């Protein structure tokens, strides 16, 4: 996931939609002005998510996960445990997978953050998203965004030489419906 140019292309393509801007206006706590009233010691930050810059005011204690979900309305990234144990909140930061509940939003400025919402290009799904559907690699979908982001990184790290290697490197993402063998199949498909 080093192709910065891809995200820039996305930015251009999405510029007309203003979907994120609309969300910022619609969510009182998300606008810097409103947040300043309610968040006592908030700081103005800029997060670059899925190729777009988002200005927001948050307290330094706000996690990247809660900034994405509660402030930017990017709710595809899920909160499962808030302790780095389940992997549902996995996002890519500069191409590397991290658990967004274990990092603060203020620490992730000047970084390229990719969430599940930023994986497809317009109507074209990422090959791993397609493989998840084809292989039935999810049921309820609660862990799925984290599984897919983790799987994208698992592939780019090269940890896909065998099913056992994938199993090992995907064991930080829990799936309670328990679709593990199908997740392994999907990652193998997409890694080809």
């Amino acid at each position, binding site marked *: 996931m080093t192709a910065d140019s891809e995200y820039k292309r996305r930015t251009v393509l999405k510029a007309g939609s203003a979907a994120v801007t609309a969300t910022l206006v619609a969510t009182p706590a998300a606008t810097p002005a409103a947040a300043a009233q309610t968040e006592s010691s908030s700081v103005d930050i800029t997060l670059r998510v899925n190729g777009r810059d988002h200005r927001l005011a948050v307290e330094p204690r706000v996690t990247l996960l809660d900034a994405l979900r509660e402030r930017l309305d990017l*709710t595809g990234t899920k909160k499962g445990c808030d302790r780095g*144990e389940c992997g549902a909140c996995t996002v890519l930061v500069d191409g590397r997978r991290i658990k967004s509940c274990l990092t603060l939003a203020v620490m992730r400025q000047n970084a390229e953050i990719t969430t599940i919402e930023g994986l497809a290009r317009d109507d074209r799904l990422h090959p791993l998203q397609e493989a998840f559907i084809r292989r039935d690699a999810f049921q309820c979908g609660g862990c799925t965004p984290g599984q897919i982001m983790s799987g994208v990184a698992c592939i780019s790290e090269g940890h896909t030489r065998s099913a056992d290697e994938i199993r090992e490197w995907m064991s930080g993402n829990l799936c309670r419906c328990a679709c*593990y063998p*199908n997740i392994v199949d999907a990652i193998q498909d997409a890694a080809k």
Partner: protein
Amino acid sequence: MTVGQPVERVDGRAKVTGDARYAADRTLPGMLYSYLVMGTIARGRVTSVDTAAARAVPGVVEVFTHENAPRLTSDQHFMPLQGTQIHYNGQIVAITVATTPEQAQEAAELVRVTYAPETPKAVIADALTEVYLPANQEVIVGDPTAGLAAAEVTVTQNYSSPPHHHNPIEPHATVAQWDGDHLTVHETSQGVVNAQRTFASAFAIPQTNVRVLAPYLGGGFGGKSPVWPHSLLNAAIARQLGRPAKMVLTRAQMYSIVSHRAEFRQQVTLGAKRDGTLTALVHLSTQQLSRTSENMYSHSISSRMLYACPNIHTRQQGVRLDVPTSRFMRSPQMASHFGLETALDELSYQLGIDPVELRRRNYTDVNPTTGERFSSRFLLDCYKLGADAFGWSRRNPKPGSTRDGHEFVGWGMATEAHDHNANPSSAMVRMAADGTVLSQTATQDIGTGTYTVFTQVVADALGVPLNQVKVELGDTNFPPAALSAGSGTIASVTGAVNAAALAVRTAVVQLAVSNPASPLHGLPAEQIITQHGYLFSPDRSRRESYRAVMARHGAPVQNTSSMTNARGYSTGAVFVEVRVDPRYGRVRVTRGVGAYDAGRVMNHKTAGSQVIGGFTWGIGNALMEHTVLDRRTARVVNPNLSTYLLAVNADVPDIQAIFVNKPDPVSTALGARGFGETPITGVPAAIGNAIFHATGRRIRDLPFTQDKLL
């Protein structure tokens, strides 16, 4: 026909792109965040609550304690914050409300609660003298004493299993918004209609004033079937403060206020003839109850329904402890089933009869408790299909006979069985003037594939392509339908969906044959064939598309149908291979095959995933899952996912799912039965039986952790 095909999930795109909105994903203008303060004693009283520091936190709007919380009652559960009494550790003792989640959490940590504590009882072993038999929990068939006297071989063993927590990846969440005396709730719910009823009752408003939405659910496993008190409290707070309120439980909070599988002890006695025929089956159990409820959920159904035995005695005892109330958790019959299926393996070794053959010899077409014939049962086929696929005939039964390097290899099996719910349900199907089809019903897709299966059912009934059909679920504005629990969704709702779609088909066919402008005009309606979005004459020489008929009609055609439905019993057989490393006592499950009779299989892809999921739960139950209570404080000491271990990817091998796939004649669901809870039930016993085969060690206490094998 698409029913039966491995159709990809129609909600797949929404789930892999993050577009699917779950309850906690809702953010409403002006919304407040509620956060729970959990008590730290298990028994006693709250003597004071100091909220001054919490109230001083910027952004805090209100702090509720038992002194100022809204007054509420629940017809289902003990309602906290209504008084000072504490019944279990982790009971809600205060709620903070603030404009951001961080502020609410900080305030919660500053609430100071003092208690007058009493000594709690945490586990069954603490209260053995208080074991009792609640009403209607004993069943005796035939003469068990005489059956045991007539036995040539008997096995009597004790088995036990710990509390389990559901742990869906999505935490429980509730977002409440009032408009006058109308309430809208985005709720993590396995049953929006039940939830609507509970909210309406709590606030004494008409049911029609409450709208509950749960279009997506991030796993429930039974834990999201009821509306829990925290959701009612959050809605009451939203009403009192005049703003929408959102409450998302933390993982730790889910270990005390949204139920669990009860701690369970059981004694199984089997009497048999030398040929393996059972003469008596006596199943005595004790499960944990709470101070506020004596409902029990770990039922000995398997002992009463699975095997031919003329003399059966099941006795389900309880003991009240200072712990939260237990509830159903995926496959509640599994706890007792583990004892039965392990005891059968022990009997097979005493008799020297292969464990599959022993079960075959006790096969029955008739419910041994009621004498009624099962509507269909292909369990013998399951034994054969599963055993053949696994290669069971190559098994040397001698324990410890197979080694691979330093590991012992063992093969074990068990029958799988669970009954399923069926509740009256209704559904609407509407074909729009442009020929597209919408179906709505207030049941849920909790991950099991409901959206997909109903899309298939509607498409087949009408004879239109899948992409012409849209299914909407999880909204009380839709026709009322079943709770998604007890493996009941497909069995309960499919019939109504199919009937509504067939009624729309009939109406549209009538529109065509009765209109001179249609190429099908004048043909007998019952001879019209519908396929691929077209209506055909019987010889297929003439046709007209649904789209054209509807365009001419210029208005939608709609039907709402209702149906009552039949309960059922889905069975199967599971075979596992384990490898045991004697140096560490480590057990790995390396192979799994399950063969099932679930009636007709609606979708091989989603049904297959249910098997994988169930098998994986079985691995978790067998090898790692257990909630640990501190006996002095009756407090859960592992309320998180790093110490309450679930099976992870590396724990799960490839699993083969086989289906007999024969329709059940009494099913209203096109021959399908409920199934989701069956393919877990036998796995813990099968793994234990495989460990015995590998090592000669019989472990009767779940989970089979490494310490028990060293």
